[in-house]
């Protein structure tokens, strides 16, 4: 089959690799009908996430048709149409029982690698480095899905793939970000980053009762999408714009009730701290560039909530913890507990409350994927979201 393989930093190649086979009793093989490049894949492309190996198959947002199931998968059969969550959960450990699916105890075969860095390991993920499990991803024609009895969501309607594909990651991720923001009706929410997750966080914040959402980015196509959802936009790259001042101006000096960092570890900043982070990470003296996190901690109101769907990988420098403590803020973060959100969000799509396909800007083939990684990373061609048809 054809698959997008990581061959080193800034190097993706579409290669012919063996087809996946059933290995364990709860496995299924899925014929991928649509997959996507995720913003977090760009962290792999840029070499920010350790333990990638040449030849790793990329991709954790995918859906398709069940091709084959293992003997212990009773709920799926060949031909079923499914969306697969990017986190792999066993359903039986203490964390799955607590509905904290992203913290599954059992699905990371390389848990010891993550334990070294984080103390404990979370769930295995598709196509996201070996410390996260070493599973082959879904930017391919076929993929093996472990614990297919737990994760995949059956689609039993005739909605096109593009309207349900993002239930595999970014829509639930944006929704959980809004949920983590602890929004009360009438609240003002600020969202850094108007990429796909930021977009769904904005839409979800409104769904959860926010009166006003302020969206911060520097790319016009993304800011326009945010405005189309009803957000007020702040272009931080404009001359004389200070995000902190803007957020005070827009909230009567109070600050946003909740702040959402939908940017994560590769933030860009036009301030001095941006230069600092670029230098430090280049010299391996810092792993992440946390300028958005710093700004969000500064910006959020006293007693407010900071929600972090953006990925952070390692050790951060100069995080204003004194400000976080002094204002008594709450921080909520982490990988998405996908299984809690897929079904209710599918119902919202079925009812026509939201059409997630509005963020798609590019539809491509597997052969075009390596080039499009670069295009998106370099923020060219007005990319907002790239969807791949593996059979085109």
């Amino acid at each position: 089959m054809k698959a997008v393989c990581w061959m080193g930093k800034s190097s993706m190649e579409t290669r012919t690799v063996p087809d996946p086979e059933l290995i364990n009793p709860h496995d299924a093989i899925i014929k991928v009908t649509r997959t996507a490049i995720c913003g977090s894949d760009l962290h792999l492309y840029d070499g920010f996430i350790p333990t990638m190996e040449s030849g790793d198959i990329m991709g954790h947002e995918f859906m398709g048709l069940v091709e084959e199931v293992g003997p212990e998968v009773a709920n799926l059969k060949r031909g079923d149409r499914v969306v697969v969550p990017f986190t792999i959960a066993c359903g039986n450990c203490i964390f799955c029982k607590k509905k904290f699916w992203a913290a599954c105890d059992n699905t990371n075969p390389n848990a010891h690698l993550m334990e070294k860095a984080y103390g404990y390991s979370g769930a295995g993920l598709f196509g996201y480095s070996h410390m996260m499990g070493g599973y082959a991803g879904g930017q391919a024609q076929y993929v093996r899905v472990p614990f297919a009895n737990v994760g995949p969501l059956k689609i039993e309607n005739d909605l096109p793939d593009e309207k349900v594909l993002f239930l595999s990651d970014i829509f639930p991720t944006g929704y959980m970000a809004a949920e983590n923001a602890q929004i009360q009706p009438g609240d003002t929410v600020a969202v850094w980053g108007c990429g796909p997750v930021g977009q769904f966080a904005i839409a979800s914040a409104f769904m959860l009762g926010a009166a006003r959402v302020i969206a911060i980015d520097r790319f016009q196509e993304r800011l326009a999408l945010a405005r189309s959802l009803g957000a007020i936009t702040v272009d931080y790259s404009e001359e004389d714009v200070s995000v902190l001042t803007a957020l005070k101006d827009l909230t009567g000096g109070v600050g946003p009730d909740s702040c959402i960092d939908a940017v994560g570890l590769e933030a860009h900043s036009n301030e001095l701290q941006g230069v600092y982070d670029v230098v430090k990470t280049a010299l391996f003296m810092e792993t992440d560039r946390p300028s958005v996190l710093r700004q969000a901690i500064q910006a959020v109101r006293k007693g407010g909530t900071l929600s972090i769907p953006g990925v952070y990988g390692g050790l951060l420098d100069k995080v204003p913890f004194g400000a976080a403590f002094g204002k008594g803020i709450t921080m909520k973060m982490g990988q998405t507990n996908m299984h809690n959100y897929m079904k209710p969000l599918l119902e919202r799509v079925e009812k026509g409350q939201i059409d997630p396909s509005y963020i798609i800007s590019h539809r491509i083939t597997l052969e075009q994927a390596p080039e499009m990684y670069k295009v998106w990373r370099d923020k060219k061609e007005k990319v907002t979201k790239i969807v791949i048809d593996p059979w085109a």
Partner: protein
Amino acid sequence: MSISPLTEKPYAEALPFSIGASVVVNGRYLSPPEDKDGKIWVRSSALVLRDAQTLYAMWRDVESAPRWQENIIEVVTTGPTTSRWSMKTSEDDDAKVIGWDSEVMADEPGVRIAWRSIGGESDNAGEVIFEAAPSGQGTVVTVLQEFRMGKLASAWETLVGRNPKQAVIENLRHFKALAETGEIPRSQLDPHGDRGIIGNLKRSSYGETVPTPTGSN
């Protein structure tokens, strides 16, 4: 809830303390024994959402150990308390196989099992205890294992790419996954493109050249 202190010493020799694998004794946390005099110790715990009796039975069924213990090819029962163990020393098809005999020294259904080797190419002793979790949900399984740095340990370290300590930790992880889910998650057999020299070096350093046990016979 810790189990009452055990005074029995079911090991190849006297333990540095007298309570086996327990982590808490008389309200105090006890750190695992130190490595010294050519002996290495490892202790690992896991919360498993199954009852102690089921987990005890799984562990006591020595002939099924190859399902969840890395590189163990075969275990044959040779008597009521004895068994013969065979282990591969690398993933190669023609890898050297080492063997040893093992004897169960203490056997308390649902509570603990202690064992030691009684000859052959490995000098080891160990104990596993099963305690109800404080939350009332599931069982805390704690294993304490001792190795002498003999042929086994050096073969293991040089050829298998796992030191014996890590192997004990990984085996408990496999045991937990098998007990909770009925399988041991594996990713080593997934398709991939060309690994190249660096990719293969990484595989080895991440411990991925040690085949994950299959979880089945």
